């Protein structure tokens, strides 16, 4: 415990906690849209696909966020173009593109000296080396993404539940899809410096799923998901400070533990309700 208290006295650790909590909250809210549109595989793919962008940015010396976003959007376009052929289903195309672009990232990285050190930082993040610039980027990204998502909330949710209906009412469903995909990609790129490409997946999917266990309504799900995401960031960092384990791993694992506890709690709750009411439980629809 003493090491934890000591850690909080340093500015580095306080910055790290702030960044992790911030990303956890933003990713939690965006994650609800990911779950609604069944995009988890897309999230996993983007976590790999933004990797070459991050590598190129670090080699060329510009912002990792810009590199990740730029390459991520390129990959989204590629998936849409390659997937336009009827013979191939989306998941196969995503699989091909994610493996190819990840291999490209590794290849560029392996071509320069001292690569293995950098590589693990990209994968599991280095939240303790977060700069004020990273935090400002995160705040800006979070503000823009959340503003757009809340402005278009009704339309996006409608499109997710009833694509045909939304189209018939004159909404351009592909624009709504595009807005969500871009929001996910940008959030992913902002999370990369802190939790790494692979574990950003955890914050974009797990908190939303955990929240979904507790409630069926969308806005409460978002509030809960943001809470679980922020909590995972905070607790994960504390765990990593106490036991000196990789921060990104600890954050993702905390999110997983939250899910398991919630699953146990909601399962026993709905079982109890069923027994008391003597009717079918309404907890899990």
């Amino acid at each position: 415990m003493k090491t934890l208290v000591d850690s909080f006295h340093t500015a580095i650790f306080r910055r790290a906690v702030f960044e992790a909590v911030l990303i956890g909250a933003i990713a939690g809210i965006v994650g609800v849209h990911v779950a609604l549109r069944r995009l988890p595989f897309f999230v996993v793919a983007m976590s790999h696909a933004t990797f070459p962008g991050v590598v190129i940015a670090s080699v060329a010396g510009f912002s990792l966020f810009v590199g990740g976003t730029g390459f991520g959007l390129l990959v989204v376009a590629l998936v849409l173009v390659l997937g336009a052929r009827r013979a191939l289903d989306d998941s196969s195309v995503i699989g091909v593109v994610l493996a190819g672009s990840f291999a490209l990232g590794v290849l560029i990285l392996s071509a320069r000296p001292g690569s293995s050190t950098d590589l693990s930082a990209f994968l599991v993040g280095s939240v303790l080396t977060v700069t004020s610039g990273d935090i400002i980027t995160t705040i800006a990204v979070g503000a823009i993404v959340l503003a757009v998502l809340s402005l278009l909330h009704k339309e996006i949710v409608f499109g997710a539940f009833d694509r045909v209906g939304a189209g018939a009412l004159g909404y351009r469903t592909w624009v709504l899809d595009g807005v969500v995909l871009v929001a996910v990609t940008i959030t992913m790129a902002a999370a990369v410096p802190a939790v790494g490409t692979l574990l950003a997946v955890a914050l974009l999917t797990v908190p939303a799923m955990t929240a979904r266990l507790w409630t069926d309504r969308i806005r409460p799900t978002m509030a809960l998901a943001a809470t679980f995401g922020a909590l995972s960031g905070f607790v994960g960092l504390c765990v990593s400070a106490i036991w000196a384990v990789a921060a990104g791993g600890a954050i993702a694992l905390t999110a997983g533990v939250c899910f398991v506890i919630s699953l146990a709690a909601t399962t026993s709750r709905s079982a109890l309700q069923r027994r008391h009411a003597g009717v079918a439980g309404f907890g899990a629809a």
Partner: protein
Amino acid sequence: MLHDLIIRPFESGYMQRALIEVVLLGVLGGIVGVHVMMRKMAFVTEVVQHTVFPGIAIAFAFGHSLLLGALCAGALSMVLLTVGTRRSAIDSDSFMALLIATFFAFGVIVVSRQRSFQSDLTALLFGRILTVDRQEIVDTIIVGAISVIVLWALHKELVMRAFDPAYTGALGYRIDVIDLVLNLVVMLIVVAAVRAVGTVLVVAFIVTPAAAARLVFRRVRTMMVASALGAAVCGWIGLIVIFHGSIDHGWRVAAGSTIVLVFTLAFVIVWAASAVFARRGRGSGSAASVEAAS
């Protein structure tokens, strides 16, 4: 010239072993990949390749067999996947992302407690195709033989379940058992490939050749032969590129990624070629395409 290009790389023992391993994995991945694609299971493959990681990490840390560690972790994740997606409140895609995140995070934590963290993590993630030994090739042959026999014996059932799940169920087949068998076969092949190409690039061996074959062929067996052959040839070309690149030009390239990029390049070429042919053939009336139900 030709001898220099094709034969010389494989004069040394380690390149021969690498070639045998790559061709074996290419054939296995190509065959199972067609099933994976028919069932739209690319995400499951992605899940397996990440969830075997903690098994390998733990086995590595405690000095046990990597193959055994990977098998245990892979089997555990497949069982969790089957059990976890039974509850309707849990979307199967979200649950798969959860499995990836938590298993992978656990593996990273285990490795981060080790002293030689960086280089070990890199080796586990990206594999060492050029240091494959005799034992690993024997393991691959055994795992491959089991997988191919299972796929061959259940071929009709697997294809029927892919195209018409309702009818398969009505005939009395247990769909969940068929699914579990296919998941386990995919897991076996991922485990066999993981030490050679690493935990993040295995998916390319399974998904990419099959997707390319699907663009050209319509029949399941033809697709399997084409994707197995294509993957083996691409693996061979990849090794030649690695050899000449590193020996003649002094490039520092990661072997596994080079092979995967050859796969991807071949896919893009096939995609472009078939797009051109499809445009030409449209006038003369092409056959209706076959679509698999998920």
